[in-house]
């Protein structure tokens, strides 16, 4: 939730920003806020800490995929394979669990890496459109998942690590410490920015919003059972993603490649190497999502992750990432994942006819982007 922070660090804050621009900057957040308020009216269960904790656990897999997908889309590509990779890596985890925890997890991540390398190889070496290469991977990985598992779900052995990751919580005390640390970091970064760039409205606003968001999360988790471990992983990946995009050359090159690949190449950016990195990142994140999903459901399903790629793309795009590449943020994708997650949640809480759920979901995805576009247009 602290993307506001980072984009401010990026854009500088000492020029005057109109309220229209602010509206635009936060349009996706506003959409989320509106949905949040509606959800509150729809069901009194919605704003319960337990339910909100559930939502964060439910969106973790999609959220992690959306981090990788955003990075890929930033370069102007797409990764349609992630859903199947979630399924396949779950099977790999289940198959290798006998060799011990660390080897199993390593094997799973390596499987993700190999898939990423395969995608990257065809994309960078032969210039095959990412859409096709990863569409191919979608069926290839699914085929391997089915073949390796012979089509059956494979249970995970009971294992303290898997259980904790899948459904455990950090103790309330531990959770409190995490929140204190995060709040400290936020305040430190916020004030450093304020000092460096002057006290402008957006800088203050983003500090307040980030702290508010953090407070909300703290309330949710601390008044239920603490932070779920898988949310901790998810949160770590989100922060890592934000850091990568804003603070490292790799991140900036992704924007550059998507913005103008030729210019990036002529400026000495190794376009192919960075594309390799980003597709590997996406697949490895899908492998992590596969691990999380498998521990969460307790066994690996070869059909797991079906269609997840579309939700991940939707999260990224709802969050303002341009499919043409060059524009987008992880924070936006996170909000997008929340919008989709809350949507699924309230459709269930409101006991909507399952057929109508499809219709609503389609309408709301369109509406979320619509809101975003309308604000952008006003600018």
């Amino acid at each position, binding site marked *: 939730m602290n993307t506001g922070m980072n984009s401010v*660090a*990026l*854009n*500088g804050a*000492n*020029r005057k920003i109109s309220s229209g621009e602010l509206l635009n900057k936060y349009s996706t957040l506003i959409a989320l806020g509106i949905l949040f308020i509606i959800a509150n009216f729809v069901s009194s269960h919605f704003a319960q800490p337990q339910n909100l904790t559930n939502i964060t656990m439910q969106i973790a897999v999609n959220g992690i995929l959306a981090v990788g997908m955003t990075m890929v889309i930033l370069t102007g590509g797409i990764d349609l394979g992630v859903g199947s990779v979630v399924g396949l890596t779950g099977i790999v985890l289940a198959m290798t669990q006998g060799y011990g925890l660390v080897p199993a997890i390593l094997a799973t991540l390596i499987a993700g890496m190999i898939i990423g390398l395969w995608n990257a190889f065809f994309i960078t070496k032969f210039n095959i459109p990412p859409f096709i290469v990863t569409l191919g991977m979608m069926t290839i990985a699914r085929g391997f998942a089915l073949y390796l598992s012979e089509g059956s779900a494979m249970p995970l052995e009971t294992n303290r690590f898997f259980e904790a990751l899948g459904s455990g919580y950090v103790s309330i005390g531990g959770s409190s410490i995490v929140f204190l640390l995060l709040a400290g970091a936020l305040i430190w970064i916020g004030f450093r920015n304020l000092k460096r760039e002057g006290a402008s409205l957006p800088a203050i606003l983003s500090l307040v919003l980030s702290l508010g968001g953090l407070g909300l999360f703290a309330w949710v988790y601390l008044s239920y059972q603490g932070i779920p471990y898988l949310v901790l992983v998810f949160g770590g990946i989100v922060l890592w993603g934000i850091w990568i995009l804003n*603070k*490292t*050359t*790799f991140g*900036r*090159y992704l*924007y*550059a490649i*998507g*913005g*103008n690949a*030729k*210019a*990036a*190449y*002529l*400026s*000495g*950016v190794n376009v192919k190497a960075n594309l390799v990195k980003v597709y590997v990142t996406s697949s490895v994140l899908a492998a992590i999502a596969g691990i999380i999903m498998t521990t969460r459901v307790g066994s690996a399903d070869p059909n797991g992750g079906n269609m997840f790629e579309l939700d991940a793309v939707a999260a990224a795009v709802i969050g303002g990432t341009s499919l043409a590449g*060059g*524009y987008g943020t992880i924070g936006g994708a996170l909000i997008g994942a929340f919008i989709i997650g809350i949507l699924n949640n309230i459709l269930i809480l409101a006991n909507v006819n399952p057929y109508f759920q499809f219709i609503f979901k389609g309408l709301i995805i369109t509406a979320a982007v619509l809101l975003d576009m309308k604000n952008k247009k006003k600018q």
Partner: protein
Amino acid sequence: MRGIIKDFPGVRALNNVTFTANKGEVLALLGENGAGKSTLMKILSGVYPHGTYEGDILVDGKTCRFANTRDAEAAGIAIIHQELNLIPGLSIAENIFLGREPKKVSPLGIIDWNQMHKDTQRLLERLRLPFRPTDLVSTLSVGQQQMIEIAKALSINADILVLDEPTSALTESEVEKLFEIINELRTSGVTMIYISHKMDEIFTISDRITVLRDGSSVGSAMIEDVTRDQLVTLMVGRDISQLFPKVEQTPGDVVLKVEGYSAKSPKGDGYLLNDIEFQVRAGEVVGFAGLMGSGRTELVNSLFGALEAKADGKVEIEGQPVSIRTPQDAIRHGIAMVTEDRKESGLVLNMTVKENTSLASLKRLSSRLGVINEQAEEGLARQYMKELRTKTPGSSAVVNNLSGGNQQKVVISKWLATKPKVLILDEPTRGIDVGAKVEIYQLINKLTAEGVAVIMISSELPEVLGMSDRILVMREGTIAGELSRSEATQESIMQYATGGV
């Protein structure tokens, strides 16, 4: 560079070119569109890596084999490309240091933003650019972006700096700034290769010239030893007796009349265009002069229905009031507009010459059901290829493969095919070689003889002076003054343009 040969599929772009630049000089590289200037420089700067061409590059006597642009930079060679190579979504600082970011923890690639912003600030101050390092490049105008390109090249601290048509989008004052910098660099021993189609600039800034023609070098001389005419002859291989072959016509009836024309800025701060009033007669060339950003493009875009901001005011065509909301309306009323950026808004680059030529008049060439009459289309394309002497392998050649001048002729063909009453030319000769320029001027003469009313926007004052019957000077969205052909001079125009009257 020695014995350089470079082939593209179907064309030999460079044929055994040998080319030398001496330390600390400004060498002007001249030639027609498609002569191979940019290609030669791309080889020098590692864009076309070693192995994709024949011949050797020698820097300080040592043979260099660049695998990419990074290698060339390491050897002290920097280039400002003919096309802008910036990333719109990134900030100025990010663009300048793209690929060379100062890092805190090198192997991790963590960017040292403080360092980067400080260095950028210093560069911007040196070029006296009023931006902050964190401003997004997409918010800058094309000329300002060009200045960022220059800043980027300077940041490399190269020994050899290639400038490929750096001024095509710069304002006069920006050009002056650039020349100051070039002079500074020259005194500090930097070798510069300067490519331009603007003769004035060549004579102002360069020490020596080298001319390329059809992929071969045809000569080299010190600037003092050549005259302008000699240079032109060397470039195009024939005499051009008159650079501005203006033929005066007796103007006919008023074709376009604009009154009280204003447009509010969509951002809400003030007017883009304010109370514009002018008229154009049949057979007349009205030149629009003004500084960059004075609103000329906005005015014609608005008249053409292509500006997002809504405009009020009266527009009459041949005495009839018209309302133009989209380019479609404009075309229906007999207006045609050659836009200032042919690649971005003039051509569909992956379509053929024929398809581009017919694009704006396709309705006329097709039946009511929308079936295209192919023979008529082919005929149209051939007619204009012939009339404009467009150099192309055929009507079905893809326009992307044509040289700049010939691409521009295709754009003009497209608009002539709509049989316009009013032809708007926005920077019609930008980036075009002398030979092609003259051909376009001759075309303007032919059109005026046929009674077409021509509006010509140009930032090259000699061109406005040479080709217009009347000159309107714009400043900050208003018409600052009108000058007849006889009273117009560079000084009088500049006075109106800068408000110094």
